[in-house]
């Protein structure tokens, strides 16, 4: 019956778009400021991954090209895809949890908290104290601290009220942004660095970034996916979800923690990249419908592809200079989203 067909369709959508995304990632690996041919690129990747150099006779690639592909482009593309997937998936989760089409991964003050953490670390020169990872660590801590504060503010007698959460998120974001601005004013020498971080981007990505952030992000998305069915029921309202046997307070708490961890990990290594978490879930919902069991995986895959593509544009279009990728996500995403809105004239979500 049709119900079974739908499951097959979902699989097709997911694996189709996943292959597409991997293709996009490979393609973007060949594009860059330094001209390296497609064959050479894949040769380097294959030889590195399979460590077959000693068995087969791979041509000797220039060491500089190896560094560019393996140490610069590949980690950057992997991190961009993970961050894109994280933002899009969490955006989808939050739009469902808050039953609000305006929700994005930053509604609980994560971006403001991370910015405050990063700005403090940059302004107070924490790198010289704790080293290279000071800024991401401070951003991560700021993101979690702000989410936790918002969560505590949002707790009411009977559990967690999503509306109180939203409002607390808005208020705390404004408060943290004010402090960040104040720090920027006081430390004008670091202004450029702070603002650049806040616009978001992947320049300077290393394997260390990938190794710390990607496992958290992947684990977070997978665990959030476990709550897809609960999220579906929650779209019908808290009471309906409860009547369908969902332990609502526990589920909400778990979703909030997972979403906050995932977003914080993404933001810590990439800054606050806007718009991806808002438009990708909407775009995907227009294509596959509101069921979170397909919406979340599809959003993650599309978010990854979108982020890799925009980052590639960001690092090549003005090469050797770079545009912060957050500028481009909004620049391309905004008009495209408006086009979709106009095309689908019926009510949106």
């Amino acid at each position: 019956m049709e119900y079974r067909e739908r499951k097959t369709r979902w699989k097709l959508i997911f694996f189709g778009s996943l292959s597409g995304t991997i293709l996009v990632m490979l393609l973007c690996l060949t594009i860059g400021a330094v001209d390296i041919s497609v064959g050479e690129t894949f040769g380097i990747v294959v030889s590195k991954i399979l460590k077959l150099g000693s068995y087969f006779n791979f041509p000797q690639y220039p060491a500089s090209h190896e560094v560019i592909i393996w140490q610069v482009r590949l980690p950057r593309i992997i991190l961009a895809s993970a961050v894109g997937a994280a933002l899009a998936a969490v955006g989808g989760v939050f739009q469902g949890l808050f039953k609000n089409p305006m929700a994005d991964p930053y509604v609980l003050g994560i971006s403001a908290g991370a910015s405050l953490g990063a700005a403090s670390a940059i302004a107070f020169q924490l790198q010289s104290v704790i080293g290279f990872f000071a800024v991401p660590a401070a951003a991560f801590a700021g993101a979690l601290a702000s989410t936790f504060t918002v969560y505590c503010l949002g707790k009411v007698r009977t559990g967690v009220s999503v509306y109180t959460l939203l409002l607390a998120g808005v208020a705390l974001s404004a408060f943290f942004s004010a402090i960040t601005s104040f720090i920027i004013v006081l430390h004008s020498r670091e202004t450029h660095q702070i603002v650049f971080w806040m616009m978001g981007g992947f320049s300077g990505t290393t394997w260390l970034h990938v190794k710390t952030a990607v496992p958290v992000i992947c684990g977070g998305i997978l665990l959030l996916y476990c709550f897809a069915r609960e999220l579906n029921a929650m779209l019908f309202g808290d009471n309906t979800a409860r009547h369908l046997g969902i332990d609502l307070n526990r589920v909400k708490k778990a979703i909030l923690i997972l979403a906050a961890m995932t977003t914080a990990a993404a933001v810590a290594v990439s800054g606050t990249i806007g718009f991806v978490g808002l438009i990708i879930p909407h775009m995907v919902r227009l294509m596959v419908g509101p069921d979170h069991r397909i919406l979340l995986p599809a959003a993650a895959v599309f978010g990854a592809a979108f982020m890799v593509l925009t980052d590639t544009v960001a690092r090549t279009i003005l090469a050797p200079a770079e545009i912060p990728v957050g500028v481009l996500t909004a620049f391309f995403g905004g008009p495209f989203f408006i086009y979709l809105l106009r095309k689908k004239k019926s009510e949106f979500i």
Partner: protein
Amino acid sequence: MKGLSLNIDKLSFSYGSQKILEDLTVQFQAGSFVSIIGPNGSGKTTLLKNISAALVPQKGKVLLQGQDVLRIKPKKLARQMAVVPQDTAVNFAFTVFETVLMGRMPYLKRFESESDRDVAVARWAMEVTHTWHLKDRSITEISGGERQRVIVARALAQEPQVILLDEPVAHLDPQHQMELLELLQTLKESKNLTVVTVLHDLNLAAQFSDYVVLLHKGKVFAAGRPEEVLTVKNIEQVYRVEVVIIPNELTGRFNIIPVAKSTPPQGKLRNCRIHLVCGGGSGAFIMDRLVRSGYQVSCGVLNIGDNDWRKARELGIEIAYEAPFSPISEKAYQKNERLLDRADVVVLLSLPFGAGNLSNLEQVYSALKQGKKVLVVGDRNLAGRDFTGGKATDLYDAIVKDGAVLLAEVKDIFNVLETMY
């Protein structure tokens, strides 16, 4: 399937300082149809939410087959009890079938897909609620009444032993109101389902319930079988409307007809006597209104047991009456004559005439001849109301021709009276 009983034990609930339910104790038997009725703000929905564990009471508890609902695991509770809330609006475009299939959630493990049986149960639930044809439509696109039935289908897909419904027929047309309540009644009988529903329509409550709980200001005002709870006195005290209760031969139950807002008669008596010629309920409304407005009312000739006779007795007005189903006797005729003599105005209402009550018309005609003011409510002719083979029609025509004032509606009587007095 054995049904489950519900015990509500000394339940108190308040929103902040506002007490909604106070020390409420009531029991629902397994496999019974329970209606919760009461005016707006009497706590019906709050009671339902306390039963479904959506709200946590400050005092007391709700026991489902002896177990505190708050201590039952949500998933297990959802397999035993389903809820149809009042507000069923949805913003996200799930299809109707997906929505109903969600009713199977309490039976699924985390990564388990819906089995063929789950799909079959959902289909059954949609077929009995007549929503199967909507299965591929979006839940956001169907009408409010259709959505209500879809939500009932989802609740039934949970295969519950208790179903709680908050105003389930509010958005439904009469056909679907009946179908839904009959469906619940059938499931009650075939599956021993315990049905607990908030209803606004007292007649539906009277027709379908085994047990009725009348709430008033957060307390149980009365609880019991419909005929014990839905009495004229109870309804008047709680709803502040006056009603008439008449047996309904078609359902074997009874009907409740609101008559007027229950306000005490306005004290001032007018010096105007009005005699009503009525019967079969044609005069009940105007009788009541005239008495309230301070007119001195009499009526006749009425048969004992007639609706107008009952109403007249209730109001304590003077009646010329006759034994049930008997033609008007000399004694009743004389009594009517006296009442007619005393009256300032005679009102002839829209009632049928047969051999038994033809004398009423004769008396009205002679009163008119003696110069009494006569008001006639109804059509220009007696078409369809004459069972005397033309005698009544002749009299009626004569009355209308010889100076009676013809009024289209009962209410017009007041306009005429206002200009006179």
